[in-house]
């Protein structure tokens, strides 16, 4: 019984994780992980609290990241017929 409930819990957790990734809800967390790992090469003029990744680049705030991601997403073909 315990094993079944643990499997169900894991199933829901996986679904929730998938939904957050798919919708873009978790995009900022992924970006932060990537930036802190020192791989972000982007340099922004809007710096916040002098936060920097391991490679010294400025880390965007959640709002800055959201607007930046929208700008990138909607400047190319992103929806089909």
């Amino acid at each position, binding site marked *: 019984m315990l094993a079944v409930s643990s499997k169900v819990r894991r199933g829901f957790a996986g679904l929730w994780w998938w939904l957050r990734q798919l919708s873009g809800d978790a995009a900022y967390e992924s970006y932060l992980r*990537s930036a802190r790992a020192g791989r972000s090469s982007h340099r922004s003029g809007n710096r916040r609290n002098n936060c920097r990744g391991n490679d010294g680049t400025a880390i965007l705030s959640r709002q800055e990241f959201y607007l930046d991601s929208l700008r990138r*997403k909607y400047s190319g073909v992103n929806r*089909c017929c």
Partner: protein
Amino acid sequence: MKRVAKFAVWTALALTGAWGIATIAMQRGEPINATWFVIAAGCTYLVAYRFYSAFVAARVLSLDSTRATPAERLDDGRDFVPTHKWVLLGHHFAAIAGPGPLVGPTLAAQFGYLPGTLWLIAGAVLGGCVQDFVILFFSIRRDGKSLGQMAREEVSRRGGFIAQIAVLAIMVILLAVIGLVVVNALRSSPWATFTLAMTVPIAMLMGVYLRVWRPGRVLEASALGVVLVMLAVVTGQWVADVPQWARLFTLSGPALAVAIIIYGFAASALPVWLLLAPRDYLSAFIKVAAILALAGGILIVRPAVQMPAFTRFVDGNGPVFAGKIFPFCFITIACGAVSGFHALISSGTTPKMIMCEGHARLVGYGAMLMESFVGVMAMVAACALTPGVYFAINSPAAIIGATPEAAAATISSWGYVLDPQMMRQLAQMVGEQTLLNRAGGAPSLALGMAQIFSSTIGGTRLLGIWYHFAIMFEALFILTVLDAGTRVGRFMVQDLGGRFWKPLGHKSSYTSILLASALIVAAWGHFLYQGVVDPLGGINSLWPLFGIANQLLATVALVVATTILLKMGRLRWIWVTLVPMAWLVIITMTASYQKIFDPNPRIGFLAYANVLTAQLAAGKIPADRIAETSRLIFNQRLDAAVTAVLVLMILVLLVEACWQWYTILSRRSAPALHESPYVHTRWTDASTAGTVPTIGETPTGGGA
């Protein structure tokens, strides 16, 4: 033992699929249960994915999971983001699945259920999925380059330019035709118009929520938006029942066209966070939910398909659109079988997010199979209506008349029963003034969906709510394509126009933004308005034109793919892309020739223009319709010119590609591939590549 069990399972699946296809192909005279469609399509997809896509992956493309993808090498957390394969499958599917696989099959149902269904299944398995898969793979190998860039590098410089112009042309025609679908769905319908109008302030509220109150919290904002939209669907019934409110939201076709044109301009010129992005989130959630609900509904209700396997309209005199089954069935259903537009997505964001080359099979081939399944479900929903009701909804007034009695008389003369009283009752039950002459596919699909949904939940009491939910779902995500497409079109106009007049190319200049937005909106707005005032319904001209443009773009993609395969030394397997390419060339060239030169005025653009010109010269056109008729004549000639230009461009590309193939095969030139150099993946060794990272994890560099 395990091998024997596997062999038995796959043999059983293959036989069941073949049985399903044989059943839907052989059934004559009485309704067939929709379950057979699900069995035929589902089993074929599983077998094709297991064997054909594996063959393409291993033998034709030689996917190499030890090779680092651009997402790994260039990871910047923004454009290049390593993404789990199931998440990327969802992303890619959401991007490729637009209104096309819903509307195309619904329109093609006028030939009967069989031709469209077989084309959806075979076209996807052998053509569309292969195209999406190979273009995705080639783009991954080239750091996520676009189709245009690959055409320029691998075929010729002209190839890239042709692809760019073809994309702009297809975009203009696409936006006009989907705008027309929305107009025909909302015309004289206060309930549907109110519901859709409400999505604008709801999206703006979500925009402010995401921009100011809770930046980037997409799920919270989407949940809020979905609740408000459902509320709008329900209150729409009340609006339609109150005369003064109903008057306000009862709009004619031309008025709706103008409203959509203004909306498109606003969505293109306003900041993206305010309207476009939140509407996109809202639409994505409702789209996925509605498609899942339709799949579930079909499985639970198992409706009987009322449409015969073939109708009499295979002869080319169909009321929905004119033209014989060959080639028009194959261009009417583009998305769902083969869609060139998908090549833009496969060479857009997806190749920059793929973690491992091995995932390209699931994402490229698998997502297209899912879209094809959506097309089959749309076909089932449309064919679940009785043929009489289907033709009454989808035929223009010029052919069947504008009253239920006239429509019943015409449709009965074709051999399909239609009771005028039943048409009135049906309209009343769904809360509409009339369901007649709603060409475009959306209302008949909505009615089919509503019947399936109401058989599951609520019965006929909720038929109106379900119908308007389905209309809202279709219109909402058509408008999402329309506003996103207008914005991309604006960028293209700025790019192309900037070559001739520099200030237009300044993307941050507000004058340039407004001017380019006005140009692109004027282009599709012109076609949209002409479609709305066309007495033959507009869809008859515009949908085939869109299908031709889309399949021509698929031809470009398959020409590029064939050239690259040849350069890779895969001559033996070149038929994998060459056969679908040749088929597309045959159907697009035949359809284009017929659309331009056919003497039947319902098919040939020039013949229709000549008939109208003769009527004008003979004084048969009333004085108040002379200006409108002159515009119609100009528009038919414009349609002919657009088709001819597209065909000529593709012929130039084909000649250049054939020359390139000849020089490679005759060893006159050494094949030069433009792949990025090999870099070994850091995440794992070859034996486990494709399995890391697992769900819940995100790769952070170094890796295993």
